[in-house]
């Protein structure tokens, strides 16, 4: 019975609101936009956060990537004519020293990078030859699409084998059937043993170790075939002598990543006279990105809250006007025998119905906007149950909070005066 009475009251509230359709609609708008912006904000924020988390997974937040780089001093001082040789970068010694000094480092992956032209039959493309160890596939986990990854026997047997990326395979028209076929890199021949997915895509992506144009070969083969002296860029006549182009480290414990990075930097600075390397710590970048995002969310959230507040005030304003307008009705109800509590309930229900309805419409708007954002701006958005429930809950709360005062005013109406009210 209580249940029936509640719905009767709600229906009565709806009927009263329908008497002034335009007014009720306009009153609702504040909450509609308020809730809409909260939902949209949460969805965009959630989308960005999910994207960032996926990036972490791809990069590996336990990793530290050290890349050899020609130092700034060298760039300026070797401004002479003719082919030159720059000697810089990480050494095999560096890698061993890191592994020895920092027990928190689980594994170190040496990487040699060579830009070369690759051919299968008529097709060709420029690739990045990645000479590395088995540990690469352990740190940079990518789904295997065909064949296999490098195996210990490839290293022991000095096998000229290569693992292509999906992108490279597509460009070179390599398929499952291509496994076992020949890939010509420069002038050398390699046997294709597998195809992996690549996540890196454009090299600028958040410090990913892999790129879509990669081709993985055993590091000992890379060393024998290419040596440490290579051309500095594909069409440059300058030469460089670099032992290791990259060292990727995996740190055992997430908490130690930043400390280890600091330690390695201090150590490398001692053995390198010039700053000929760059260190990238994805975790630090992510932390920074998250802090920025949090600030962004707080700002957006405050704006959304302000619009909700404005919506609530709008409702309160109209309800106060409505109470004045309906003074006589309140007086009649009171004279007949309505208790103050019942008058409060009546007006509160109207406000809550108004704000909840606004909340539901706003929710629609808030789901629609992120959809448009995703479609037009390509920004990922995620509508979570929380981002749906929270604004709904907030809109109900707004109805109660901003309805309480007008309802209390209604209950204070003196029936004797109200009945004289024309």
């Amino acid at each position: 019975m209580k249940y029936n009475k509640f719905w009767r009251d709600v229906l009565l509230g709806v009927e009263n609101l329908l008497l002034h359709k335009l007014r009720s609609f306009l009153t609702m708008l504040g909450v509609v936009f308020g809730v809409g912006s909260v939902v949209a904000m949460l969805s965009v924020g959630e989308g960005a956060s999910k994207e960032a988390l996926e990036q972490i997974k791809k990069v590996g937040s336990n990793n530290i990537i050290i890349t050899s780089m020609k130092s700034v001093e060298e760039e300026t001082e070797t401004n002479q004519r003719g082919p030159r040789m720059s000697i810089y970068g990480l050494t095999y010694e560096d890698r061993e020293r890191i592994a020895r000094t920092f027990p928190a480092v689980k594994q170190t992956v040496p990487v040699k990078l060579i830009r070369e032209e690759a051919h299968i039959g008529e097709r060709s493309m420029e690739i990045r030859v990645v000479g590395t160890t088995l540990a690469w596939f352990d740190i940079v986990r990518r789904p295997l699409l065909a064949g296999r990854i490098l195996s210990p026997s490839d290293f022991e047997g000095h096998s000229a084998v290569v693992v292509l990326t999906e992108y490279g395979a597509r460009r070179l028209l390599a398929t499952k059937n291509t496994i076992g076929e020949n890939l010509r890199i420069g002038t050398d021949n390699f046997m294709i043993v597998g195809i992996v997915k690549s996540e890196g895509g454009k090299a600028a992506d958040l410090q990913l170790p892999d790129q879509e144009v990669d081709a993985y070969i055993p590091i000992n083969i890379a060393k024998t075939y290419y040596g440490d002296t290579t051309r500095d860029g594909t069409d440059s006549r300058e030469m460089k002598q670099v032992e290791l182009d990259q060292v990727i480290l995996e740190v055992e414990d997430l908490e130690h990543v930043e400390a280890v990075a600091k330690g390695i930097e201090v150590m490398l600075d001692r053995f390198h006279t010039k700053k000929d390397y760059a260190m990238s710590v994805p975790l630090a970048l992510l932390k920074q990105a998250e802090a920025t995002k949090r600030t962004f969310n707080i700002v957006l959230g405050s704006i959304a809250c302000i619009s909700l507040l404005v919506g609530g005030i709008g409702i309160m304003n109209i309800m106060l006007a409505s109470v004045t307008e309906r003074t006589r009705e309140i007086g009649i109800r009171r004279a007949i025998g309505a208790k103050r509590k019942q008058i409060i309930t009546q007006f509160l229900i109207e406000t809550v119905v108004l704000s909840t309805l606004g909340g539901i419409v706003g929710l629609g708007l808030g789901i629609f906007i992120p959809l448009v954002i995703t479609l037009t701006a390509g920004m990922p958005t995620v509508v979570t149950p929380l981002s749906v429930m929270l604004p709904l809950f907030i809109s109900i709360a707004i109805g109660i909070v901003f309805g309480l005062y007008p309802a209390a005013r209604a209950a204070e109406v003196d029936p004797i005066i109200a009945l004289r009210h024309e």
Partner: protein
Amino acid sequence: MNNDLNPRSNHIMVELDQAKKIYPMGGQEVRALDGVSMSFREGSFWAIMGPSGSGKSTMMNIIGCLDRLTEGRYLLEGHDVKTLDDDALSEFRLKHLGFIFQSFNLIPQLTVQRNIELPLYYLGWEAKESEERAIELARRVGLEKRLDHRPTELSGGQMQRVAIARALANDPQVLLADEPTGNLDTATGDQILEMLVDLNNQGKTIIMVTHEDHIAAHAKSRLHMKDGVIERLEGEFE
């Protein structure tokens, strides 16, 4: 609410004992009721008369439990109203009183049926039962074909009949009518008065405020107020 506990209540519905209502107004006291003692017996039909400012409206508000006395006692069906709080007063109005106003005081956005159902709604009746009751009451006042109409679609006489149906919904012992014909033409007014006389004949105690003699003539007894006190009583009374 057991009337048997109070032997007098079988006869006396409404009793005022040295009732005083004093308003402060601009530093001065207005004695709207200045010591009124009066008993209204069950089944009586009183017209309270007097010029404006005589205290008849105040008396009506007191009897209707809409206002409280400054001094003295007011007993409704044997209950001392002074001791009741606002909620209890509301409850009292809801269960014991029916109001009929000069300006009908129907709620404009509600249909005739909903207006009649209003006291039942606050009494917590089920929708189906209160609908049946409303239909029955509408039939009694001859408006069963108007149940879905809004008050604005009705004539003055029809609106007052809806108001009477509403006042009867909770089956009160006492009906309070405040100038019930004030906004009606004579013919319609007479119909309404006939209705009240009928109700009185069926046992309802009716207290009606009016300033017109020919209206008051329908009542069994007349009470004349002046300056907050009873000037004289007329008609049948003990």
